[in-house]
């Protein structure tokens, strides 16, 4: 190793660039912490935090980039005797040579073959999760099985051919006839709209009155609220959030009455329910994953959800 061949350490071009020490990041961090705290506590603290973060962030950025923005040292243009370099060979004629053609066609053909193989395979990996999602209509049996003003836990298989993994539970309440004379039902889906755990009715289940009709299990329950065991979400009898982390009201099913039997339609998300029973006003939205907002500012984060496309 020849010592003289090494670049001098003092030459800034050959030393790793390390920004100088700075206290501004601490102020920036305090600002960010203040901002996050403010999001929970109050907008004033958040605004102060944002101001601090921006101010110290700018100071920090100014200090870090000082070297870059500062005077650029004059660099002597490198001069070399022309004689040292051998005369450049005459430039090759600008033809599309055979080797370049072969190179381009190898890469091009290889890419085309790769795409032909990869695209359908990737499609098969992704698309089945979003296509052919047909909600089977579930027949919950004669409406006489649902006493007025009382919830019934109904569990069933949405697709018996695919087995137990398709078992679902809904809470069904007969509200008596609606204004138009048709029977009115409240049908809440059991999955918590926080993160999808199984919501439980808060009340005693009348196991003695349990019925099983065409694969649908019905169990009356005395409950005026529903609770989730996972993270403490609490809903009232209309499925509105009363406590805990859920971000909307419990999902509901549309329904229809056919030949005196209750038939479930499609699942939808509910922003809020005002009023009760047959007179409830339900703000209805396309179903979305638990934990996603369907109304308010936060719903802007989910402009397009799969059920809007696949149904």
């Amino acid at each position, binding site marked *: *190793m020849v010592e003289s061949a090494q*670049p001098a350490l003092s030459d800034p071009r050959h030393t790793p660039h390390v920004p100088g020490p700075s206290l501004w990041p601490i102020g920036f961090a305090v600002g960010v912490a203040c901002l996050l705290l403010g999001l929970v506590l109050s907008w004033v603290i958040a605004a102060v935090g944002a101001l601090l973060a921006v101010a110290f962030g700018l100071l920090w950025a100014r200090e870090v980039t000082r070297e870059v923005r500062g005077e650029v040292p004059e660099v002597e243009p490198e001069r070399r005797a022309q004689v040292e370099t051998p005369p450049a060979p005459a430039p090759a004629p600008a033809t599309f040579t055979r080797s370049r053609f072969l190179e381009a066609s190898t890469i091009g053909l290889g890419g085309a073959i790769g795409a032909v193989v990869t695209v359908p395979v990737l499609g098969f990996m992704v698309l089945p*999760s979003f296509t052919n999602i047909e909600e089977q209509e579930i027949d919950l049996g004669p409406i006489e099985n649902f006493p007025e003003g009382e919830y019934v836990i109904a569990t069933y298989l949405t697709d018996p051919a695919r*087995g137990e993994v*398709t078992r679902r539970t809904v809470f069904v309440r007969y509200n008596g006839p609606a204004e138009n004379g048709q029977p009115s039902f409240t049908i809440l889906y059991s999955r918590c709209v926080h993160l*999808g755990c199984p919501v439980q009715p808060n009340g005693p289940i009348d196991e003695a009155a349990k019925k099983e009709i065409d694969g649908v299990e019905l169990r009356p329950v005395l409950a005026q609220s529903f609770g989730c065991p996972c993270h403490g979400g609490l809903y009232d009898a209309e499925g509105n959030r009363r406590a805990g982390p859920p971000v909307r009201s419990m999902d509901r099913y549309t329904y229809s009455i056919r030949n005196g039997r209750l038939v479930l339609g499609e699942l939808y998300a509910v922003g809020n329910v005002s009023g009760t029973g047959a007179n409830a006003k339900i703000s209805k939205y396309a179903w979305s994953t*638990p*934990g996603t907002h369907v109304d308010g500012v936060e719903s802007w984060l*989910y402009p397009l959800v799969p059920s809007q496309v696949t149904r």
Partner: protein
Amino acid sequence: MAGKSRRQSLIENAVLVPLDWVDERTAAVRGTKWFLFRNVPRDISWAQTLGSATLTAFIVQALTGAILAMYYKPSSEIDPVTGKPIAYASIEHITSDLTLGWLVRGMHRWGASVFIILLFLHMGRVFLFGAYKYPRELTWITGVLLLVTGMLLGFTGYLLPWDQTAYWATVVGINLNGTAPFLGPWLAEFLAGGPEIGADTLSKWYALHMLLLPGAVIALIGVHIYLVTRLGVVSPPWSRERAGRERTGAPPAGAREGLVRPGGGGD
């Protein structure tokens, strides 16, 4: 050969000649020497072994996982005879019936936590030592990708026992992903294979856990270790040989031609 007995050189030849034969054709011996017999800074410590420890934990996971796969059946269908899901029953079978099955499953289950813990300790060491800095930025980035794939391995593996904990923890995990802005609900539906966990979800996650993610981890480990070998081990921050410090005398052991800067430390 002077000073060596004839017998000694015969034995040496018996080893070296075949090695030379292989090396001439494959460069395997030179490659192994390049990979293993590296100079390291004199003031490294046990802290620098965390990366190898993480690698060892991954190798344990790969081996025990491959062997568990010989007995595990990723099916959510109910066995008509036992009335239990086939996947759950196969885990029970591994744990309570098969000889040493409890041990290998336990190694895989606890080894997963060990792997993740070591990943974080290794990352903390690299961060505190500043070993992510120039010229090792890409080593850090591949390491971060390894952390993500490693955690995905943990996430996908958790569903496989197909018991109540596995099922509902995965429901929560999928929906957590679903709350990510914009693409979250799409990601959740991809992970669940539909609006909710269905009949294909378990085998999909098994394929991710068994094939895709380990393949990605192995490829990333290859790049990561290549970069570590090429760029060398960094000195601790309190080292008197740390990078950027001007010093006189002979270049430190380990300075190599073509590496950053022969005069600098940090390799």
